[in-house]
């Protein structure tokens, strides 16, 4: 029987909620495993889950330097969508979307996936043409997309300033109705529990400090809790990719670390029931189930590992919000925070075998890797188990940059702060 069900809720309520098991154990590390996954973020945990579930590989450790969920999996603004232009991205993110659509059932854990839609606003006819092109590309690959008129948008989001005198008048938008939001902590906890129950050891407060090698081959890691060996070592450390790869003697990567901030306001009555993006700058917003408006904007724009943002970006994000919603001028912001994003040179991720024998690499998530969590783990587990990529992640190699095979959805070139 499912661990969480109406019946188990009732039973535990009657017995004073004393019999719930912790969602994951706190095991001490063993001397060796079949697979070590470095990084207990969303991607590391989902990788372990799918290794166990899809490939029967359960002698696995996830090593997390802090506590589970302390990285970007617990810092993001939870937008989930698959509205990309290029086929490699569309196929991968649509696979993720399909996994999201069944994730709560699959994990027997309510990740509160809410398909409330994601609407990209267009402010010029040229931008609307561009959105039509992207929408057509999506539909061509079987992903839902529809163009909306200003009148339809005004009905959907009554608080928006849709007047012709707005600072940036709205001329239409591109909607993906199956997009939405999910509860990020629940995603981490649900994958952690699912992996733990299948035998995976999740080891917190265990920082990888170096790699054990036999010649070129990686045969394990040194950690703050001792040496641990494994036949396969998988790296899924998002913003810390450069630092961890340096431990393996790889000094340069096609990645820069940049800080992204996010913000949440005091709770309001229902205000907006979709994910909305501004087209004349960088601003997006949704409303949490508690009522807070959750929103964000641009990166800080320069390399940073500071896990906190600066005031100029706060200023910019707030002014973009007010350009769209003048009515929010007096709403108070409750919290803001920052996370370190692994910005790749083309804005697309890397999920691959190598670059050293015995090593597997998952990184380059930029600020869009939360939505990728299910497919990233699913594809990475496949790649680790079979020593070759699945068709969904085959384009996301590390050497694509040097081979002229970049996947640059926005066409920005190798300037990570612009992706």
């Amino acid at each position, binding site marked *: 029987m499912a661990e969480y069900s109406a019946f188990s809720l009732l039973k535990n309520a009657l017995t004073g909620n004393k019999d719930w098991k912790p969602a994951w154990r706190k095991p001490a590390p063993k001397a060796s495993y079949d697979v070590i996954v470095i990084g207990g973020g969303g991607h590391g945990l989902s990788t372990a889950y799918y290794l166990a579930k899809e490939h029967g590989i359960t002698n696995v450790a996830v090593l997390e330097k802090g506590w589970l969920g302390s990285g970007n999996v617990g810092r993001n603004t939870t937008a989930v969508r698959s509205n990309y232009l290029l086929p490699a991205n569309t196929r991968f993110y649509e696979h993720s979307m399909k996994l999201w659509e069944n994730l709560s059932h699959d994990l027997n854990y309510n990740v509160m996936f809410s398909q409330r839609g994601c609407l990209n606003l267009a402010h010029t006819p040229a931008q609307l043409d561009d959105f039509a092109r992207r929408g057509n590309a999506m539909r061509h690959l079987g992903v839902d997309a529809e163009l909306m008129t200003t009148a339809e948008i005004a009905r959907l989001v009554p608080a928006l300033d849709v007047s012709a005198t707005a600072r940036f008048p709205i001329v239409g938008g591109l909607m993906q109705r199956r997009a939405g939001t999910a509860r990020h902590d629940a995603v981490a906890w649900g994958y952690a529990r699912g992996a733990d129950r299948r035998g995976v050891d999740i080891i917190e407060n265990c920082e990888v400090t170096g790699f054990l090698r036999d010649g070129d081959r990686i045969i394990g890691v040194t950690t703050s809790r001792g040496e641990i060996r494994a036949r396969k070592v998988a790296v899924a450390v998002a913003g810390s990719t450069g630092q961890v790869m340096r431990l393996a003697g790889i000094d340069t990567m096609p990645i*820069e670390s940049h800080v992204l901030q996010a913000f949440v306001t005091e709770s309001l009555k229902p205000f907006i029931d979709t994910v909305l993006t501004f087209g004349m700058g960088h601003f997006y917003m949704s409303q949490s189930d508690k009522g807070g408006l959750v929103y964000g904007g641009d990166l800080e724009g320069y*390399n940073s590992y*500071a896990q906190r943002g600066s005031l100029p970006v706060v200023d910019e994000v707030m002014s973009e919000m007010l350009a769209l919603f003048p009515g929010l001028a007096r709403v108070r912001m409750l919290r803001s925070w920052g996370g370190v994003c692994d910005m790749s040179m083309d804005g697309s991720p890397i999920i691959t075998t190598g670059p050293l024998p015995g090593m597997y690499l998952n990184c380059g998530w930029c600020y869009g890797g939360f939505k990728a969590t299910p497919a990233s783990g699913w594809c990475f587990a496949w790649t680790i188990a079979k020593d070759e990529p699945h068709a969904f992640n085959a384009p996301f190699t590390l050497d694509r940059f040097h081979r002229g095979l970049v996947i640059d959805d926005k066409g920005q070139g190798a300037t990570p702060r612009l992706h």
Partner: protein
Amino acid sequence: MLITCPYCGPRDVIEFTYQGDGNRERPQPASQNLDAWNAYVYDRLNPAGDHNEIWQHSGGCRAHLRVVRNTLTHEISSVAFARGDHKVAARHKAEGKT
């Protein structure tokens, strides 16, 4: 964050445009060394600590500056003109300190 421009003095970061990693070596324009071009365009040191980088004082005197900034603390230990300096070798904090 304040950057002390050698011409203009301490100015707010919003006056500056970030131009990225200053450790990269740009090949000669006629170079056909693909590896060197690829390394220049795509490969980054991305250190957690002192970072050698190029900023332009685009909202001021427009000079290009070579800045050493700590990516963990944002402490700036050196600012100098980048003029005539296509290649900026990783250099020590103390060097070039204004």
